[in-house]
C-alpha cells in the first residue's frame, strides 16, 4: 500500500515538478511558460505525459535490446527504492533500517548502472558519451556527498533517518542543545534543526547539495545530458513510455535528494516554529489547543499532539522542505551555466572532498566536547 501510494505520489509530483520547472524557467527568463492547456497551462504536463504514453517505443536496430529495455527500469527502480527509508512523519517509514542513510546512498548509486546500460545499450555515440560522463561524474560526487552526510551522522549518532529526524525536533529522546549550550529540548522549532545546532553543517549541507545536483545530472552539472553537445545524452534514443520513465526517475531523484537533505540537515519533519515558553516534559500533552496557544506552544501546535495530526504535520513539513530544495535546484539550473568536465572534477576532488573531510573532523571534535559538557 505504501509503495503504490508513494508511486502515485511520485508520479503526481513529477507532473507538478515538470510544470513548475517550465514556469520557473519562464519567469526567470521573463517569459510566460505554458499558458494554453488549462488555466495558466496547468494541464500542460498531463497532456505531455499522455502524448508520451501514446507514442511508440522505438528500439534502435543496432541497440542491445535487453540492456536497452532494462535500463529505464533499473534507473527508476533504484531511485524509487531510495524513497523506502525516508520518514514522512513520526513512525511513518517504509523501512526503519538502522543503516537507512547508507542504504539510500547505495541504492541510488545503482542509478549509475542504469545510465550506463542505457548509454551502452543504445549503441549511439552521443548516448555512450553521455553515459560515460554520468558515471565519472556520479562516482566522483558520491564521495563528498557521503562524507558531508557522515559529518552530520556523526552528530546524531545514527544512520536511521527516522532517528535522525526525531532528534531534531520536539519529542527528541535525547537532549537538544543549540550550539552546544542552550537546552532547547522542550522548545523545538528551528533552533533544534541540525543545520542550526551545528553551524558547520551548513557547509556540509552546501557540499551535499552541490554533490546532489551533480548526482541528479542537473545543471550546472548536466554534462551527461548536455543538450547542446550530446543532443540529450544517454537517453537520446529513448521514446514514448521508456523516455517518460527516465524522465520520471530524474525528477524523483531530485525529490529524493531534497528529502534526504531535509531529513539530515533541515530538521526532517520537525516544525520551524518553536515553543516560546518552556514547559515541564509531558505537560504539553495534557493541554487543549487553546491552552497551547495561550502558552505560545507554536511548536506543539504545528507538530500535532496525536498520532494522526503529527503524521499530517510531519508530512507537510518534510514535503515542504523537499519542495523548497527542488525549487532551489531549478533556480540554480536557470541561473548558472554548465561547467566543463575538468571544472567538474576539480570541484569535486580539490574543493569539496577536502572540505568535507575537514567537516567530518570538526563534527568528531564537536561531538567529543558536547559529550564532555553534557554527560
Amino acid at each position, binding site marked *: 500500500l505504501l509503495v503504490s501510494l508513494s508511486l502515485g505520489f511520485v508520479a503526481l509530483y513529477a507532473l507538478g515538478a515538470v510544470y513548475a520547472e517550465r*514556469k*520557473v524557467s*519562464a*519567469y*526567470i*527568463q*521573463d*517569459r*510566460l511558460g505554458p*499558458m*494554453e492547456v488549462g488555466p495558466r497551462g496547468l494541464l500542460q504536463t498531463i497532456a505531455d505525459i499522455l502524448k508520451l504514453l501514446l507514442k511508440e517505443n522505438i528500439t534502435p536496430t543496432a541497440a542491445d535490446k535487453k540492456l536497452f529495455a532494462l535500463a529505464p527500469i533499473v534507473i527508476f527502480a533504484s531511485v524509487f527504492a531510495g524513497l523506502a527509508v525516508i520518514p514522512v512523519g513520526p513512525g511513518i517509514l517504509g523501512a526503519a533500517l538502522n543503516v537507512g542513510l547508507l542504504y539510500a546512498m547505495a541504492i541510488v548509486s545503482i542509478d549509475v548502472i542504469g545510465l550506463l546500460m542505457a548509454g551502452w545499450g543504445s549503441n549511439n555515440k552521443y548516448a555512450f558519451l553521455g553515459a560515460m560522463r554520468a558515471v565519472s561524474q556520479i562516482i566522483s560526487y558520491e564521495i563528498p556527498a557521503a562524507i558531508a552526510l557522515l559529518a552530520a551522522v556523526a552528530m546524531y549518532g545514527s544512520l536511521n533517518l527516522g532517528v535522525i529526524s526525531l532528534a531534531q525536533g520536539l519529542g527528541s529522546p535525547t537532549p537538544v542543545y543549540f550550539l552546544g549550550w542552550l537546552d532547547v529540548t522542550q522548545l523545538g522549532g528551528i533552533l533544534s534543526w541540525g543545520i542550526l545546532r551545528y553551524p558547520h553543517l551548513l557547509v556540509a549541507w552546501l557540499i551535499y547539495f552541490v554533490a546532489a545536483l551533480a548526482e541528479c545530472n542537473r545543471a550546472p552539472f548536466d554534462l551527461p545530458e548536455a543538450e547542446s553537445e550530446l543532443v540529450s545524452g544517454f537517453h537520446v534514443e529513448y521514446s514514448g513510455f521508456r523516455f517518460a520513465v527516465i524522465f520520471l526517475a530524474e525528477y524523483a531523484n531530485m525529490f529524493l535528494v531534497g528529502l534526504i537533505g531535509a531529513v539530515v540537515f533541515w530538521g526532517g519533519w520537525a516544525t520551524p516554529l518553536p515553543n516560546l515558553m518552556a514547559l515541564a516534559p509531558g505537560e504539553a500533552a495534557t493541554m487543549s489547543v487553546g491552552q497551547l496557544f495561550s502558552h505560545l506552544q507554536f511548536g506543539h501546535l504545528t507538530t500535532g499532539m496525536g498520532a494522526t495530526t503529527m503524521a499530517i504535520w510531519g508530512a507537510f513539513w518534510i514535503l515542504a522542505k523537499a519542495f523548497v530544495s527542488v525549487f532551489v535546484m531549478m*533556480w*540554480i539550473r*536557470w*541561473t*548558472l551555466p554548465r561547467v566543463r568536465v575538468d571544472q567538474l572534477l576539480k570541484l569535486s576532488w580539490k*574543493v569539496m572532498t577536502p572540505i568535507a573531510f575537514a567537516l567530518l573532523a570538526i563534527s568528531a571534535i564537536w561531538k567529543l566536547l558536547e559529550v564532555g559538557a553534557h554527560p
Partner: protein
Amino acid sequence: MSKRPTYLKAVVESLGTMLKGMRLTAKHYVKGYERAAPLGISDPNYFAKTEGPITISYPQEKVPVPDNGRYRLFMETDDCIGCDKCARICPVDCITIETFRADGDLGRTSDGTVKRLHLPTFDIDMAKCMYCGLCTTVCPTECLTMTPVYDYSEYDRDNFLYHFGAYSPEDEGRIRQETEAALAEKKAAKAVPTSLPVETAAAEAPAARPRPRPMIKPSEAPVTAEDAPILPSEESKNDPPAPPRPRPRPVMKPKPDEAAGQETQETAQPLEAKEEAPPAESATPRPRPRPIMQPKVAPAESETESADAPPITPTPETPVAKPRPRPIMQPKVAPEVSDSDAPVIPVQPAPIEGADTTPPPADAPPAPKPRPRPIMKPKVADAEELSGSESESESGSMSEEKKDGGPSA
C-alpha cells in the same frame, strides 16, 4: 603557502558570484507573474515597462494597432466606378478588374460619382499584396481602403483571393445578357435615325445652336429629376421606337465605345474618354449621367466657346448615331488633343472637378430639346478644346470606356 589564499579566495569568490547571479534570477522570477496588457506603439508608455515578461500570448491578446492601420485591403463595392486605376498602379498586379458597360447609369457612389460600369469582377490577391497603398491613394472614389486587419492567415493560398465583385457569377451572366440586349436595342434604335445626321454633324464644326440644347438637357434633368422621364421625352422626339431609358445611356456608351475602339493605346482616346468622363461626373448633380456627359462636353465648349455647348444636346438624339461619328471623332481628337492630353491624362482627381465643371453648362440657357446630331461634331471640337483646358478627366474613365468598348463593339 601562497597558493592557499588564492584557493580559498577562489572558493569564496565563486560562491559570491553564484549568489549574485541567483539574486538576479530571483528578482526576475518574482516579477515573472506581473504582466501588463500590451501597449500599442502610439501609447506614451510604450517604453515604460522594463521589467517582467514581455511575451504576448498572441491569439488571445494583440498589440493594439493604430486606428488608421494600413494592412488588409478592403473595397466598398458600391462605391467603385470600375476605373481600373488601382489595378494599373499596383506594382505586383494583385488586383484584377473586369467591367462591362452598363445600360444606363447604375446610380452613384457615396461621393456622388456616377457609376456607368458593371463590376462583375474585382479580385484582390492579398497573397501578392505588398501593402504599398498606391491603389488606395489613386482611387478616385476612395472605395479602396486599407483596414487595420492584419491577421488573416489562411490554410489555402487560394483563400487570399478576395472577391469584391458586385455580382455572383450567375447574376453576372444574366445582367450582362440583359445589358447587352438593352444596349443592342438602343443601338439599333439610334442607328436608324442618327447615323446619317451624326456624320454630317461631325463634319460640321461646332454650331451655335448646340448651346441651347445642352442647356436643355440639363434643364430637363433638374426638372424631371429622373433620367427616365427625360429620356423618354428625348426618345419620343428623336427616336420613337427606342426604349426610353436606353437612349440616354446609349449616348454615353457610344462615346466610350468609340473611345475604346480607338483608344486603348492612343492618347487621343484617353482624351475623349476624359472628356466623356467629366461629363459623367458632371452628371452627379442628377441621375442621368450620360445626358450630363453631353452637357459636360457642352460646358467645356461653352467655357471656351459658347457655340460648343449645343453639340451636347444633339447627343441625346444622336445616341445611336454617335457611336459611328465618334470613331471618326476620336481619330481627329487624338491627333489634336494628344499633345495636350497626354500630360493631362495622368491626373486622376478629375471626376470631382468634372462634376464641378459640368454644372456651369447646365446653367447655360435652357435650350429646347433639340437633338441636333451636329452636336456630335461639336463634341469633337469640344474634346479638343477641353483636352486643352480640362484635360485631366481620368485615366480611370478611359479604362472604363475601353472595357465598355469591348462589349459594346
